[in-house]
């Protein structure tokens, strides 16, 4: 027997999976536009982000509707609440991808300098974390989600490294300040992407195991 809440939960889930895939796609696109200094690609990203925003609004509506009409409890309730939080995180990732695309536009307009290798590493890490978080959500697997949480530290370290290098470059080559600044911005955005991806993993743990592991590092101090 299908419970009345199940079709709604299923639709919510599908929506979130769609959002997640879209976010991954536009993150990849924005990074490609950055590596290749491709203006056209960068502009596409902005349009794609609008789609994510639309999906986010649809999710808001779905969540309200389920809460009002189904009064879900236990795991159903946690899934719905977590779903809303995941949608918010994915929407922010979309915005961050758009920021990266803006940086790409600016870099394309200026003299081309070599992209710091550490930045590429950072980008790969961020993308990997996002993919693994979304996989954990797709599988409703708290173990995979937990694994994601450990990677966040590495990302922070790499971000610091990129920023330090960029600052040094600004000091030694002030004529490339603008580009270095954009590199810094991209690094920060990628760090934020990883952060939001981690949030998604935490939401998965809350939904499946009813454990709230948010802000663990800050609260532990």
């Amino acid at each position, binding site marked *: 027997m299908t419970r009345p809440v199940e079709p709604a939960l299923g639709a919510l889930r599908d929506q979130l999976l769609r959002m997640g895939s879209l976010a991954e796609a536009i993150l990849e696109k924005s990074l490609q536009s950055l590596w290749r200094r491709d203006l056209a690609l960068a502009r596409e990203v902005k349009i794609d982000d609008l789609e994510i925003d639309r999906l986010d609004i649809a999710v808001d509506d779905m969540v309200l509707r389920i809460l009002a009409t189904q009064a*879900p409890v236990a795991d159903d309730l946690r899934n719905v609440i977590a779903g809303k939080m995941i949608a918010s995180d994915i929407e922010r990732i979309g915005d961050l991808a758009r920021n990266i695309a803006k940086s790409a536009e600016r870099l394309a307009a200026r003299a081309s300098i070599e992209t710091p290798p550490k930045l590429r590493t950072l980008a790969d890490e961020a993308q990997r974390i996002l993919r693994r978080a979304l996989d954990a959500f797709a599988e409703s697997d708290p173990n995979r989600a937990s694994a994601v949480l450990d990677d966040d530290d590495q990302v922070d370290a790499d971000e610091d490294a990129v920023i330090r290098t960029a600052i040094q470059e600004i000091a030694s080559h002030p004529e490339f300040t603008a580009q270095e600044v954009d590199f810094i911005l991209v690094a920060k955005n990628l760090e934020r992407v990883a952060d939001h991806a981690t949030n998604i993993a935490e939401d998965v743990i809350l939904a499946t195991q009813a454990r709230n592991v948010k802000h663990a590092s800050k609260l532990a101090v």
Partner: protein
Amino acid sequence: MRFLTKITSRGVNVFYAEKQALFDVNLDIPKNQVTALIGPSGCGKSTFLRCINRMNDVIVGCRVEGKLTLDGADIYADDVDVVALRARVGMVFQKPNPFPKSIYENVAYGPRIHGLASTRADLDEIVIRSLERAGLFGEVKDRLHDAGTSLSGGQQQRLCIARAIAVSPDLILMDEPCSALDPIATARIEELIAELRESFTIVIVTHSMQQAARVSQTTAFFHLGHVVECGDTAQIFTDPHEKRTRDYITGRFG
């Protein structure tokens, strides 16, 4: 969170002739809280409720084993006066059942037979206070001598609650008190339950999980005569420990 216990149940088994209705029930009902008993039809929650005020005594062939205590004293001891017990443990039924007497007489009957008022003035005071606490006085103060049965369903149920609290019980048992009422009357009763919690311990059997979630602090889930899980209401409804509990409250069965 520590709380005082009003009722303890240890190894309680209840039989209706050859059929067993409750199996090894171990439960603590906390004092001055609302405890909800939930579960599908026929799971034994009403049976358990009726053990507490020994209403099961009137059912032929009903046998209760195990230990059930009220404030530490065994309810089923040989020397227990059932009449006195029922004065300490009030009950409100699913279908409102006021006596076919006046509103005043309905509330006054209990205090009268238990000798709680020595003068007419005392009795008046008890009646008025009980009706006020039940949130009914304002609506009936001009017609206290009208028949109790002339009130609406929700008012009748509040009259039954006033009747129960007029004898100053410690404990009020409610067997699906709102199932025959409309949503507004139900909301009023739930509001009343929240107010009464200050002075009474309340045990409520309910079919509505939303109601259990709204009014109670502790919830016990019964299934096929067993207590599957008992704990903090918010805990049960956000993260129940037992799979059966989770399946029931999310509607996967029942």
